[in-house]
């Protein structure tokens, strides 16, 4: 209880008026004259008491009237929990992740959701949410049964990986706009792999009442699947034993030891078969070699004859493009023989690459055409022939990529070719003793990508940098920094192409990077990134994104992108085909993409194999989750959350209505009593 305008309470001083009129002022009775009292007798009943009672009632009415008017101006309010039936929102979340395809899980969940929707109180608003690779809000909070039902029925099982942490984040974001309480009904198989690393991410706000509908009753059924396939995306020589091989890992979840048949399928035909003994709840590796594929894109798959209850995850698809080996132009400074040696050795060591390194001195690069190379490396070559530099400019603008390494020749003020800037300074760490390590690494950057960097930060901290150039990092992406914050790996987009700048050299003089294993990984990923083959074939996970065009590219300058999804449909509209920056791969299967620059790509898309582990979340964890909202409401969050749930409700209207009734009653009583007194007078 409070007052929105408490200063009006000063008007309570007006209460003294009825007090003065009724209690302080002596009431004067005007006697009524008669001719004679001959026939009258004194009344036994005291009229004074009657009058006093009447006046007390009138006084009370007037007192109440003044009080109510003052209160109405002060605008009282109470904090009331907005928990009435109409303000509750029923949030129906239907899990459409890949694991829901197992058995009749999705059909059961959808049916239960429809039943819950039909059983909600009449007029209660509801909202339909589909939980797949991302959280999709299919409707607004509405009460229209037909629309809600249609939204529920339109949900189909997807190929994405559900994450309850994402759901928690989405609901928390929703609570910023929906202030009332939410009844969240989650229809899911409660897959353990859908839990986020941090349990707190999946905890809902206190005003959300979570009801779990587990459609996966009982223990998890045994399920075998092809966990991963290691196959070259590009293949130049099928006879190369190092490259022309497919290595598949098959895994069993909640399975006994069994012998399964694993097949390699290329172009729809089984080209190889292998029997493999899979231990109980264990993994086994199957290798198919050689990989005889034809020129061009080959749609391949590794399939296990599992015979389990979840056949949808029995195959893993991937695309292999067979082409001739691509050449890489390595331009180095005169007399520098170390950097091509290290880089070439690393490039050859990468099994999945099919590159031929062509190393030339900077002064010999005049007549070279960069467009004939997969990518170009400029190793400590700040001075280039102008013709070659112009050719490189055009090459980058059209989509070519260049790796620039700044070595010992990068003195202060030296111009960096192609980069559009100068070296702002150099850092000689060897002068102060030992070199400096690499501190921050952005592992989401394609050239530095590592799926599981681990505690050693991917091996980068072991690299010692003795000499590094200082480059202006404004407007560019810094993928790695030294421990003192100096940008170490930078990426700058120029036209359609990218410049990958390494602030140190590749020659083992300015750093010891070439001596570390991480150098091979770096060269491998950098080569794939710079050559562009990383996005043209191979395999991706569902809900991964493919960049269709660069952000700076004008839509009118480039042609349309053509995408054909696994079901043979074109997911992009005509306008999207001309403007879309990226494409979300939300279906499992082969995507065929024709880029605006004329390149074609075939990408195999597989569901996240975490979806194949059908083990449910333990019951105690589910109880903790579903009870976390109310527990927190009663616990630590009770100090703040209930306050937020309550909303001030103004009582002005009620007070004013009461005042009006009091005024009417006062008028009626006053006119009656005072009229009588006048008459008596």
């Amino acid at each position, binding site marked *: 209880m409070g007052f929105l305008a408490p200063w009006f309470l000063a008007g309570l001083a007006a209460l003294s008026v009825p007090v003065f009129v009724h209690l302080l002022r002596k009431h004067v009775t005007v006697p009524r004259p*008669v*001719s004679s009292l001959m026939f009258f007798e004194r*009344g036994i009943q005291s*009229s004074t008491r009657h009058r006093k009672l009447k006046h007390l009632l009138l006084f009370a009415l007037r007192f109440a009237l003044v009080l109510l008017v003052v209160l109405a101006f002060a605008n009282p309010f109470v904090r009331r929990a907005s928990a009435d039936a109409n303000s509750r929102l029923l949030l129906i979340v239907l899990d459409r992740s890949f694991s829901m395809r197992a058995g009749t899980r999705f059909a059961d969940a959808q049916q239960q959701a429809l039943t819950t929707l039909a059983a909600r109180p009449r007029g209660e608003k509801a909202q339909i949410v589909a939980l797949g690779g991302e959280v999709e809000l299919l409707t607004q909070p509405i009460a229209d049964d037909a629309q809600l039902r249609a939204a529920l029925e339109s949900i189909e099982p997807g190929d994405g990986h559900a994450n309850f942490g994402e759901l928690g984040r989405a609901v928390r974001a929703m609570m910023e706009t929906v202030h009332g309480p939410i009844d969240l009904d989650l229809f899911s198989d409660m897959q353990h792999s859908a839990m986020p690393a941090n349990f707190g991410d999946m905890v809902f706000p206190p005003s959300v009442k979570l009801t779990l509908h587990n459609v996966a009753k009982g223990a998890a059924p045994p399920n075998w699947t092809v966990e991963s396939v290691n196959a070259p995306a590009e293949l130049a020589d099928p006879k190369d034993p190092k490259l022309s091989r497919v290595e598949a890992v098959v895994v069993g979840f909640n399975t006994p030891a069994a012998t399964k048949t694993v097949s390699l399928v290329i172009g729809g035909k089984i080209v190889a078969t292998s029997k493999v003994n899979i231990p109980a709840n264990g993994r086994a590796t199957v290798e198919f070699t050689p990989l005889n594929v034809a020129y061009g894109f080959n749609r391949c798959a590794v399939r296990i004859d599992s015979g389990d209850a979840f056949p949808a995850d029995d195959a893993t698809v991937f695309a292999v493009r067979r082409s001739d080996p691509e050449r890489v132009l390595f331009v180095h400074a005169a007399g520098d023989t170390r950097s091509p040696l290290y880089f070439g050795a690393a490039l050859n060591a990468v099994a999945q690459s099919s590159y031929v390194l062509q190393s030339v001195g900077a002064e010999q690069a005049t007549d070279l055409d960069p467009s004939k190379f997969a990518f170009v490396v400029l190793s400590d070559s700040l001075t280039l022939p102008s013709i070659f530099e112009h050719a490189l400019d055009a090459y980058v603008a059209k989509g070519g990529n260049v790796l620039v390494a700044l070595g010992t020749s990068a003195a202060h003020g030296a111009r960096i070719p192609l980069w559009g800037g100068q070296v702002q300074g150099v850092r000689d760490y060897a002068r102060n003793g030992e070199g400096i390590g690499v501190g921050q690494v952005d592992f989401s950057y394609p050239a530095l990508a590592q799926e599981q960097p681990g505690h050693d930060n991917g091996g980068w901290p072991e690299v010692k940098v003795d000499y590094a150039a200082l480059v202006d990092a404004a407007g560019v992406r810094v993928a790695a920094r030294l421990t003192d914050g100096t940008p170490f790996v930078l990426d700058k987009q120029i036209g359609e192409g990218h410049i990958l700048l390494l602030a140190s050299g590749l020659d083992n003089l300015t750093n010891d990077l070439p001596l570390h294993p991480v150098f091979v990984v770096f060269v491998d990923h950098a080569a794939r990134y710079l050559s562009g083959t990383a996005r043209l074939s191979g395999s991706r996970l569902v809900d991964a994104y493919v960049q269709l065009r660069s952000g700076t590219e004008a839509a009118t300058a480039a042609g349309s992108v053509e995408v054909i999804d696994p079901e043979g449909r074109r997911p992009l509209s005509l306008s999207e085909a001309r403007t879309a920056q990226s494409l979300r791969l939300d279906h499992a299967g082969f995507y065929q993409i024709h880029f605006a620059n004329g390149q074609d790509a075939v990408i195999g898309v597989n569901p996240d194999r975490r979806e194949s582990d059908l083990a449910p979340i333990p019951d105690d964890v589910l109880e903790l989750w579903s009870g976390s909202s109310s527990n927190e409401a009663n616990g630590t969050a009770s100090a703040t959350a209930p306050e937020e749930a309550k909303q001030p409700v103004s009582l002005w209207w009620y007070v004013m209505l009461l005042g009006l009734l009091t005024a009417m009653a006062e008028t009626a009583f006053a006119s009656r009593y005072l009229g009588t007194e006048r*008459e008596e007078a």
Partner: protein
Amino acid sequence: MLQRYLDPAVLAGISSLDLLAKTVVDGFVAGLHRSPDCGFSQEFAEYRAYTPGDDLRHVDWNLFARTERTYLKRYRGETNSQLTILLDASKSMQYSSGPLKKMDYARFIAASLFYLAIHNQRDAAGLIVFDDEVREYIRPSTRQGQLARLFAGLERAEPQARTDYSKPLRHFQNFLHRRGIVLVISDFYEEPETIIHAIAPLRFHGNEVILFHVLDPEEIRPVLKGSMVLVDLETDRKMEVVPEYVKTQYRARMDAHLEALRTQAHAAGMDYQLLVTDRSLDAALREYLALRQAGN
């Protein structure tokens, strides 16, 4: 149409008693002409045998010439009476629940009767205004200007003191030398025995006595919406009264008082007429004329 002017509410708007009395009486007389039951005239009434001592001027000599017998020819109009009005001017007569005070109503009655007596009946008329003593006395007379004097006397009669019947009536008996009609106009707030006892001597002198009991309708049927304090106009005594008593016992006592007054007045040979101030004046005039006619 002229009956309308007998309405007290209408008469209250007339300031001049002369005009008021003329309006009342003319209207009343005109109304009487339309009623054969109440008619009267000053034409020949009867013959009476002459007895010694009779005025010889009244002998019908023409009849004597034809029959040689002496008869006296009598006319109705030739009998004169003396009207004396005793007007109570005590403070209680000041009471009013409407536009007309009881005193005003009594004035109207007196004025109308004076006009009727002097102008129409050619009777002598006099006035005694009293409260607890005689405050004004106008000797009955038929002289020129008597009517004006009577009206002036009525105008001066303002309620002042308490009512006391015995003292002024005792005094009044000293003025009466000739029998006639005596009208007592009062609200008679006194015990009936006391009133009759005080007025009865007038009757013994051969007067025709009429009691005009003027009351306000609120005095007969008072209405109280709540308990209240009442004050006596004459004594200034205050009393708290409850409505329940007024509704029941007061009315019973008032009715008993009226009935006792009526009964005892009739028993004493007096006429009694209750006049309520919201009713027309003709009742009072009709009573007077009936008595006047009976007296002839």
